């Protein structure tokens, strides 16, 4: 079996013995800058828009629900099981499928509908990123299969950036098998470096900041 053979080769080449201790990992300084909430929101919006996503800010959960209702009018949508969408009333909007807990059904629905609606566990303002942690509340496919993605995010979840994320969440694997950072709409430039959006993932991403 190659396992032992490869590890043996590695150790011999490095002059190490099995189980030999290692020096401390070089320090990585995570910097979490002071940034007022208003500044985070402003930066988040401008980053998302620079990526050709859409970013809107609404004052209340009701207003978020209204915004989503208008955005999905005449279209089909699936909502994740995030409690926040329930609280906003979005999960109960007409035409929205939600509460799906079986993978086959979820896949079939997500492959059919026009819009996937999620919340997000965090957002990173300095890159315009949504952080999606898979669990009972959020799945992988709702933000992936439909051609459009709407994420409804309460403003207090907006962090400054990666450093703050890894400060808060030094060990994501302890809580999920899948954490995905989404930064703008799916894109490719594989043909003559011409930017095309929506190649495999959603071509439209809308971030609704609440509060």
């Amino acid at each position: 079996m190659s396992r032992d053979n490869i590890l043996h080769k590695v150790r011999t080449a490095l002059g190490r013995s099995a189980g030999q201790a290692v020096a401390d990992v070089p320090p990585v300084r995570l910097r979490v800058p002071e940034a007022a909430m208003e500044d985070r929101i402003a930066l988040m919006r401008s980053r998302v828009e620079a990526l050709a996503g859409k970013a809107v800010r609404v004052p209340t959960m009701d207003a978020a629900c209204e915004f989503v209702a208008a955005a999905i009018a005449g279209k089909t949508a699936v909502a994740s099981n995030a409690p926040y969408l329930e609280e906003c009333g979005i999960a109960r909007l007409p035409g929205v499928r939600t509460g799906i807990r079986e993978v086959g059904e979820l896949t079939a629905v997500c492959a059919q509908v026009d819009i996937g609606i999620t919340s997000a566990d965090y957002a990173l303002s300095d890159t315009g990123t949504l952080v999606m942690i898979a669990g009972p509340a959020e799945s992988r496919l709702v933000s992936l299969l439909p051609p459009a993605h709407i994420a409804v995010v309460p403003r207090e979840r907006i962090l400054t950036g990666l450093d703050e994320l890894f400060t808060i969440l030094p060990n994501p694997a302890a809580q999920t098998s899948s954490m995905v950072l989404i930064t703008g709409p799916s894109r490719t430039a594989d043909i003559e470096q011409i930017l095309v959006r929506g190649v495999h993932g959603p071509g439209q991403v809308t971030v609704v900041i609440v509060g």
Partner: protein
Amino acid sequence: MSVEFDRKIHDTLADANLQLAIYTATGRLKEKRIEVTADNVLPDYQELRTQAHALKQHAIDNLDHYLEEFERNVEAYGGKVVYCKDATEVSDFVLDLAKRRGSKLIVKSKSMTTEEVDLNERLEHHGLESVETDLGEYILQLAHEKPYHIVAPALHKTRYDVADIFTKELHVARETVPEKLTLIARGVLREKFLKADIGISGANFLIADSGAVALIENEGNARLTTSAPKIHIAVAGIEKVIPRARDLAVFLKLLARSATGQLLSVYTSFLAGPRRVGEVDGPEEFYVVLLDNGRTKLLPDRSKRESLYCIRCGACLNACPVYRKIGGHSFPWVYSGPIGAIITPQFMGVSHEPALPFASSLCGACGEVCPVKIDIPKVLLELRSDVKKSEAREGQNRIEKLAFRIFAWVMTHPRVYELAGRMAASMAPAGDGKWIGSVPAPLSVGPLKAWLSERDLPPSPSKSFREMWRNR
């Protein structure tokens, strides 16, 4: 092989369209990288490079430790680690698993490591359908070609080429608009994703303290590959391991910036094991294949070991005046450009393509842009000396002659024009093949001296590429 190297370089130089395509694409990537790493945009850039280098150095110097830690954690989350020494072991593992699960269709996301072991060909040889899903890789799979560039695999294909390929292979109506071509691919591949039993991805990082793989991409095909099918297999070189999840804060800031000039790529997936209780979707089985395939050969020598720090961002290709002239397919293996020039001889042995370490002007651009600060020029010099040693051992000067011929050409051509900010004009001498054999006198005193002696005396191009393009 060396005659092949000569011929491919010659063909690339003689193809005006290809020259323009390489020059434009690498130029654009190069500029975008400069914009997002500028002092006022990323004041920490140099510090991040230093940290990234230190982290990689630490991980590689203690590789056995981190591999074992990674393995323990993958298993703790219900995944499985499979060590493979070479291409055959990788394909045997996949074939066996596919057989046991009755799987016929495999979707693949972009992975240089699987290119390295010709995984698709091997699987298809045994009757499995293995489909590349990154748009560029898909185009190349249909065209039966290898990636032209680590990051932009189909960089050499025009929309018309793609239209021809799709019309011929997919039997669709001819379209030449990139948006429409993309939609065609999306449609075909979407069906494959939903039908596939197994998804095979690469891994940009293996995170030891989390038992996780990190995948970085823009299209969403890696997410689909790792989310839709019941089985996810990540194939990665053993050198991809980093100690902790938080180290990603350093690497993520560097990788997308260096590769495509983005602050972050569109999707960064951090995947630890199969779907857990309470999660609605995701694979039921999760495997990580850890591949040696020659990597352990790079470990004994301290400075050459650095070659394993590479995060495959492609920045050195875009910065390299030689890559920008001779393109990706001139290189004898899947890895091209400066990183290809240093890892190919070490993985395959220097006599595989002795000219390779000489296909560089040692201008230093690669080392300057490398986000993990690999001293590529230094490794190139060491490999040149290895070529000379192996030549002495083999008692023949064929190797040296071929190597120097490449070197001579490099020294007398591209860099100088790049410095002048002009499109290189080496097509005329290349077109009639005159450069072959035109070894300048200073070479007799060794490559480095020659380089230094030539350095301040750039011959001026008789005609720039642009002029030739206009007059063609």
